[in-house]
């Protein structure tokens, strides 16, 4: 086996009283994709931030090509050949691809003017090394590119210079299935060139597709490192959570389904989707599957009155709904969980109690005056019921983990005792423990007679949780699966209709 290019030896890091990393030893071989997985807060990001120069280790060392190195900041890391592609895209949107990639060297040698010809040519060369799938013009503004194309630009930017180690933090978080495949093809090219690729992800399925080696972190400790071929998914999950998760998904509905709760007929939103018809029955969880951009979110938002429908009818318990706004939907018992937790869901600077009480302030008020005691006891009830980890109901949302923030968001919706809940990507970016709790909650709601619709891009959870699945493709409803028809293959076939039939 090739000698390791990069090693971390006995690395430890504390943040205050929290031991973020304890005595981590890892070595990374060239030409391999090394995945690092773990729940949120396991220490993956901290470890990568130390390698990438964002943080300094308290103890231990980073060894690059046999020599211990001191990486003081991200710029140092780049000069040493360590490229870091962060989860969020950090490109300047209004300047060209070439300028973004050559940003650091634009004024090399005191050059006063940008040598556009030169950098455009250099960028074209760099792009040519990649899959032609990217189709990127060096002169294009970054804002005109798709998310996956922007990610390619980020990767090229990280590679520019003498890159030996490429770190990717959750690179597929914003990508669709086909875009993910393009990314993987690119990574395979890089692998063949002998780069070390460190890959951080939540998504177990894709780790099996791309990784050669898998290391699992938990609570700041290294639990184990194995070749990807020698460990199965269940064992991996077990290593991540430290307990058996035989029941990630609750049992599906067994009893006879009850009466129809929500009926949607020929619903359309001009230019976005049309011809959506389905009935949601008491006791079932209905899944919405399809590629990102296929119109699932828009359908949900139109049903809830967040967008004004252009045709069709929505009936709740047989009565037609005419919604002027989302407020009307809430009043009818129809609530929607947004897929964008931070930007559309939470008041990050406000406390837990304020975040939970927001939809129905009158419930905790008397004469339009908020009763603090009522507001707090409402919040405490949900904190207990949903097992939200907080220091108290006055804790600010910003300081909670993603999973706990999500539970607060869900609690907010449940304060109004809804008849139908539509959850848009309810488990996005949360750890597997919290995911499981959300799955069980959805099942419990369904059993208690609440209609549940779940939109999800993660096929395993659609398959594992839903009783029926509506699949969308480019704004059209292209199938409804039930029972044993629900499997990843049939969903993908429907969701990628064109690619399979043409």
């Amino acid at each position: 086996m090739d000698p390791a290019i990069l090693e971390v030896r006995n690395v430890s890091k504390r943040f205050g009283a929290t031991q973020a990393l304890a005595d981590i030893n890892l070595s990374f071989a060239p030409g391999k994709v090394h995945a690092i997985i773990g729940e949120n807060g396991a220490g993956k990001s901290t470890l990568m931030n130390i390698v990438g120069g964002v943080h300094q280790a308290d103890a231990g060392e980073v060894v690059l090509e046999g020599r211990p190195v001191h990486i003081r900041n991200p710029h140092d890391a780049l000069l040493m050949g360590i490229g870091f592609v962060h989860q969020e895209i950090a490109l300047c949107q209004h300047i060209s691809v070439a300028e973004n990639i050559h940003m650091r060297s634009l004024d090399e040698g005191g050059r006063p003017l940008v040598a556009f010809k030169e950098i455009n040519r250099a960028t074209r060369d760099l792009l040519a090394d990649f899959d032609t799938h990217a189709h990127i013009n060096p002169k294009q503004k970054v804002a005109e590119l798709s998310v996956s194309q922007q990610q390619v630009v980020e990767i090229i930017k990280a590679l520019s210079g003498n890159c030996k180690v490429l770190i990717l933090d959750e690179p597929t978080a914003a990508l669709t299935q086909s875009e993910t495949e393009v990314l993987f093809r690119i990574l395979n090219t890089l692998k063949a060139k002998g780069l070390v690729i460190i890959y951080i992800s939540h998504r177990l399925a894709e780790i099996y597709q791309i990784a050669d080696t898998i290391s699992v972190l938990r609570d700041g400790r290294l639990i184990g490192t194995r070749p990807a071929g020698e460990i199965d998914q269940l064992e991996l999950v077990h290593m991540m959570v430290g307990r058996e998760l035989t029941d990630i998904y609750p049992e599906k509905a067994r009893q006879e389904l009850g009466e129809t709760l929500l009926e949607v007929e020929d619903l359309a939103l001009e230019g976005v989707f049309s011809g959506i018809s389905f009935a949601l029955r008491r006791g079932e969880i209905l899944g919405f599957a399809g590629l990102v951009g296929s119109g699932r979110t828009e359908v949900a938002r139109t049903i809830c009155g967040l967008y004004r429908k252009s045709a069709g009818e929505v009936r709740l318990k047989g009565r037609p709904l005419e919604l002027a706004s989302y407020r009307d939907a809430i009043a009818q018992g129809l609530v929607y969980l947004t897929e964008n937790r931070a930007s559309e869901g939470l008041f990050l600077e406000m406390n837990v109690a304020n975040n939970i009480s927001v939809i129905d302030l009158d419930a905790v008020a008397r004469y339009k005056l908020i009763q603090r005691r009522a507001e707090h006891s409402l919040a405490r009830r949900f904190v207990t019921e949903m097992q939200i980890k907080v220091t108290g109901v006055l804790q600010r949302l910003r300081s909670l983990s993603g999973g706990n923030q999500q539970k607060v968001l869900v609690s907010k919706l449940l304060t109004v005792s809804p008849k139908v809940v539509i959850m848009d990507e309810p488990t996005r970016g949360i750890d597997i423990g919290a995911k499981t709790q959300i799955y069980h909650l959805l099942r419990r709601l369904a059993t208690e007679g609440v209609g549940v619709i779940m939109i999800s891009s993660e096929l395993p959870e659609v398959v594992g949780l839903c009783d029926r699945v509506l699949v969308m493709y480019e704004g059209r409803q292209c199938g409804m699966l039930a029972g044993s028809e629900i499997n990843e293959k049939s969903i993908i076939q429907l969701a990628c209709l064109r690619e399979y039939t043409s």
Partner: protein
Amino acid sequence: MSEQKQTEAEVQGAAKVSGFRRGLRGFQGFREGTTILIIVALGFAMSLLSPYFLTGDNFRNLFMLFAINGFVAIGMTLVLISGGIDLSVGSIVALVGVITGSLFFNAKMNIWLASVIGILFGTLCGFINGFFITRVGLSAFITTLGMMQVARGATFVISAAMPIPLQSIPPAFKFLGRGIIPGIGVPFVIVLFIVSAVIFDFLSRRSTSIRKIYYVGSNEKAARFSGVNVNRVRIGVYVLSAVVASVAGVLTIARFNSATPYYGDTIAFETISAAVIGGASLNGGEGTILGAMLGMALLALIQTSLNLLDVSPYWQNLVTGLILLAAVSLDFLSHRKRA
């Protein structure tokens, strides 16, 4: 259970940073307290420096100085909490004064009726602000900058840019602005102001309507996704801001016995400064009425102190500006490390 403990440990750990940052956190946690401390310290220093400082007259002047603009600061604080800004308040104060004065002086209208009509026009300005900001979708800065010019222009047109003399207003009206409540010897306008500030501070902590302003300012989209009628809240704050500015306009002419078209061109900046010193953020979601009132008090105290110390009035803007920068810098530093 052990997980619970661990979370607690994490939170405690996060609090255990450097002393400097902890200090900043404390500062940010109780902004009003810090402002009170500064006021007390400055007051103490002044009582040593000037024999006139600790006199009833001086305190009355001090309060008069910020009482009327204090009304405007209440509205401004709520606008800032909503994530907006209202630059037009000073012009509205002048416009309402001139409309009321002109109806009384030129049209010989009853002063009370004239005041009501003046306030209605001022309120209309706020409604127009809210309309352009929510329905047309312009930025609050540009909309209220425009309204600032429009209302000031209207003031000049109505008054022909000349002060309107109002010596003949009835005593009952004069009392609003200059009357002293017998028995306690405190000016009526000060009592009115303190009562309003206390009521609004209470409401800002408890009322469901004002809580919605905090939600909208904290995250407008999340407020919409929680069923808050965002446009109504936003129109509401601009209307409220204009209403209190209009009331201030009426009180101003009652106090000065004249309606001056140039009056109030610095009120917007003064009240924004006060609210920010008291903890409001231009990003919205934060701020309290109490804080803004303390900010007003601090600014007035500095102004009086400089007067008592015979410092040229030219220095006053400079000092006020420095204090504002200091307060905002501290606020920024205490927020920066939190994310």
